[in-house]
């Protein structure tokens, strides 16, 4: 492997950020699973050492990393922030899919039964003709 997993994810985050700064595409997002893997890889050792009694959820880990910031390796802090930003962007994309894809669904998915993500299946199948706005929202939502 030429690049480590962490480097790949980090490169992806950086690319997404650059694209969003350029205004062409909204931020690319990583999956929840990739987010967990990146946190473990960048922060795992420091968590075990400096925050052994706190859990991932409920803000406990975030608070501990903040409180012990002087001890935590800077890459962990940077990656933690990147992960939070990416997960926020993914959640926003999930919320935006319906609106971003409404026109495409009307145009390309007539007769689709509602429910069970049938519209999503149709839009993904028709992605060659579906609008960029819609496919970007679906991609950033992690639903393609």
């Amino acid at each position, binding site marked *: *492997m030429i*690049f*480590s*997993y962490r480097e*790949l994810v980090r490169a992806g985050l950086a690319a997404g950020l650059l694209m969003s700064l350029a205004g062409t595409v909204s931020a690319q997002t990583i*999956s*929840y*699973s*990739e*987010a*967990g*893997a990146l*946190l*473990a890889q960048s*922060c*795992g050792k420091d*968590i*075990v050492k400096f925050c*052994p*009694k*706190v*859990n*991932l*959820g*409920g*803000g406990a*880990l975030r608070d501990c990393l903040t409180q012990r910031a002087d001890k935590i390796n800077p890459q962990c802090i940077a990656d933690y922030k990147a992960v939070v930003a990416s*997960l926020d962007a993914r*959640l926003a994309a*999930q919320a935006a899919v319906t609106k971003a894809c409404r026109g495409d669904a009307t145009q390309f998915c007539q007769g689709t039964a509602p*429910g*069970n*993500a049938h519209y*999503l299946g149709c839009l993904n199948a028709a992605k060659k003709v579906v609008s960029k706005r819609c496919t970007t929202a679906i991609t950033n*939502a*992690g*639903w393609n």
Partner: protein
Amino acid sequence: MSRSIRNTSSLSFAVAVVALLGGAHSPASAQTALSGDQIVQTMGSAARAAPPGLTAALIRQAVQQHMIDNPGMPITWKPLELLNNLAQIDVQIQFALNSAIIRPESYSTIGSMADALHHPVLGGYKFVVTGNTDTTGNRKDNLALSQARADAVVEALTTTFSVDPARVEAVGLGQEALEDVKNPKNPINRRVQLINIGKYLPGK
């Protein structure tokens, strides 16, 4: 770290899917043998739909009843069967010893659960996250520990990973739903399950 999917409706052992999923053919799979997509497929199985009205509270009651009905040595019990036929996966989450602190190497596994729970195919369903121990130690303590561990997983899902808290609840099963009844101290019994408990009807 092994993960498995229970994919038959009988009282079967979980079928290991590690082989099915293959080895480390990409960096992502090296980190996460069980993907959110895999979970989505298993969890959406209509053939294994939960009976109407199943709730986390009813499962907790059944666990209490099982402890009353089955005193004595684990080897003599039938494990709790209430959940066997439901769409579910077994997940190995690493916790700190005798505590509910999730070890960092399991963050990505919880992320995979979140990937599945965020997918629209499963958007119409409710889930329970169970905790299970083996039979080492005290039965009541095991129940409490398994509840605390399931709580920790649900908390991570619903806060860090933004899963709607109305759709997922934690239930400790203690040592009442052993995977390997003949070997009650087999570590395979220590597991977290994600189980589809039926349609999510907002407001109910």
